[in-house]
């Protein structure tokens, strides 16, 4: 018998609003809710709040309204500080994993090895994303890591993932993590990209290129070689139809490989509660269908940040503010500057999604059912 079942659940905790996830979206939602004088419970499975910001050592883009030019690690600190100011209104449960979410809005969690039930009136889901994997021979060898894992290992725990690395993927994450690997003293042998064009911001590409790292487009990883660890990889060039070109194989001796091929929304809880979902490749995969108030197909279940579609952290921050405002408004608590802030945040989102890099997101959001905040 597992030790968890030994503890009897004696009572149900009652809360007006539960926010699941303490990354940028969840923290910002909590802040807005508290400013509207609405109490809430903020649940996060990690020991430290801040989500993936706690490993972002680079300065952020966007406008200063979303903390542009501030390093991610410092944005995390500011957002957490803001939330902790409202300790009378925000009940923070760290190191707590949500294990169940039910249609009657009961949230079940594991906290200190205890199983606890919470009855909520409204729930904001801000669970973020998980890293995609790539199919190739021996892709399960130890030493082959997601780019986020590499960032966590080196920027949170101070451990190098290896000495010689190849980065697979040239989106912003691939480019940024390559730069951060070099700051940690790791040799980045090459960045390979299957598409004929670099995926991320060119300023990031230029930053690693001038350090001598080659970015090879139309190139993918064919296989990894090794027994207990990855020792070598083989790459191959792709033609305009994404077909492998025989004879263009190239070997790299490595002790780690970093896979940066994108993120997918972490939507398990949304599926569990029965929200209507839709596959939208532009937003990273399966996403909840939402209305312009960030509400899902189930009344009073809201979603914000990467969980509702992959975007930048700056958008997650603004979406968090909006979801918070909408959720407490429906619970009857108006933020003193509700209308003004709503306009402002909608405008900010439209702005962030406006450029050529926002095009994919604009298409995705239209498929998802959101007509606001895109021009």
């Amino acid at each position: 018998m597992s030790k968890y079942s030994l503890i009897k659940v004696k009572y149900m905790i009652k809360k007006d609003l539960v926010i699941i996830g303490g990354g940028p979206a969840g923290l910002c939602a909590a802040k807005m809710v508290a400013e509207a004088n609405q109490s809430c419970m903020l649940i996060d499975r990690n020991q430290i709040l801040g989500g993936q910001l706690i490993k972002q050592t680079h300065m952020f883009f966007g406008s200063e309204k979303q903390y542009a030019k501030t390093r991610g690690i410092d944005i995390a600190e500011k957002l957490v500080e803001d939330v902790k100011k409202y300790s009378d209104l925000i009940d923070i449960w760290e190191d707590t994993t949500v294990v169940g979410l039910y249609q009657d809005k009961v949230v079940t969690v594991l906290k200190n090895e205890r199983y606890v039930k919470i009855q909520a009136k409204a729930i904001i889901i801000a669970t973020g994303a998980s890293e995609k994997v790539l199919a190739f021979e021996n892709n399960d060898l130890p030493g082959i890591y997601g780019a986020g894992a590499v960032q966590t290992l080196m920027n949170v725990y101070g451990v190098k993932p290896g000495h010689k690395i190849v980065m697979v993927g040239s989106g912003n994450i691939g480019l940024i993590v390559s730069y951060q690997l070099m700051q940690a003293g790791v040799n980045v042998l090459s960045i390979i990209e299957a598409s004929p064009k670099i995926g991320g911001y060119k300023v990031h590409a230029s930053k690693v290129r001038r350090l001598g790292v080659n970015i090879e487009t139309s190139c993918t990883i064919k296989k990894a070689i090794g027994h207990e660890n990855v020792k070598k990889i083989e790459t191959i060039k792709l033609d305009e139809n994404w077909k492998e070109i025989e004879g263009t194989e190239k070997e790299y001796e490595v002790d780690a490989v970093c896979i940066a091929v994108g993120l997918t929304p972490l939507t398990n809880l949304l599926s569990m509660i029965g929200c209507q979902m839709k596959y939208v490749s532009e937003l990273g995969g399966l996403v909840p269908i939402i209305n312009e108030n960030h509400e899902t197909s189930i009344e009073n279940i809201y979603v914000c940040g990467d969980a509702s579609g992959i975007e930048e952290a700056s958008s997650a921050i603004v979406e968090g503010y909006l979801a918070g405002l909408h959720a407490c408004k429906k619970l009857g608590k108006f933020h003193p500057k509700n209308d003004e802030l709503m306009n402002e945040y909608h405008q900010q989102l439209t702005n962030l999604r406006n450029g050529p890099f926002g095009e994919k997101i604009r298409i995705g959001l239209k498929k998802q059912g959101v007509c606001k905040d895109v021009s």
Partner: protein
Amino acid sequence: MLVKDGVATYEQVISRFPKQEFLVKPKAIIECYENIPCNPCSTSCPFDAITILEDINQLPKIDFDKCTGCGVCIYNCPGLAIMVCQIIGDKVRFKIPYEFLPYPNESETWHAINRKGEIIGDALIEKVMLTKRQDRTAVIQVLVDKENLYDFVTIRRKI
């Protein structure tokens, strides 16, 4: 090509420089070639020399008459895409962002590096600036040969 390998073309690079007679005084060179949502260069400029219109996806525009080459934008640019440049006789003085250890020491000679990461000559380190305001992005002032005006972009330690 920028979209293929991250290297800006010669035409792109020179389009960011003012006429050489402007460069008797230090001026900011903004290597931002792509419409991305970002505006700290413009909001941080103490002289209102850099403007980005209402839409933050617009490219920054610099007014070289207003730019004093103060270098505040160097460490405020999240893409580390700005440097300051001044022609002094047959040399060019650059101020560049630098985020690697070890930092150079004044009066050392390091390699001068181009946009492809290749060595193109020597860079004499004149100053290493790292104040609290710079938030861990050091600014290095170096002197390189004038022939490297449009090629130089960063430095590398000689080993």
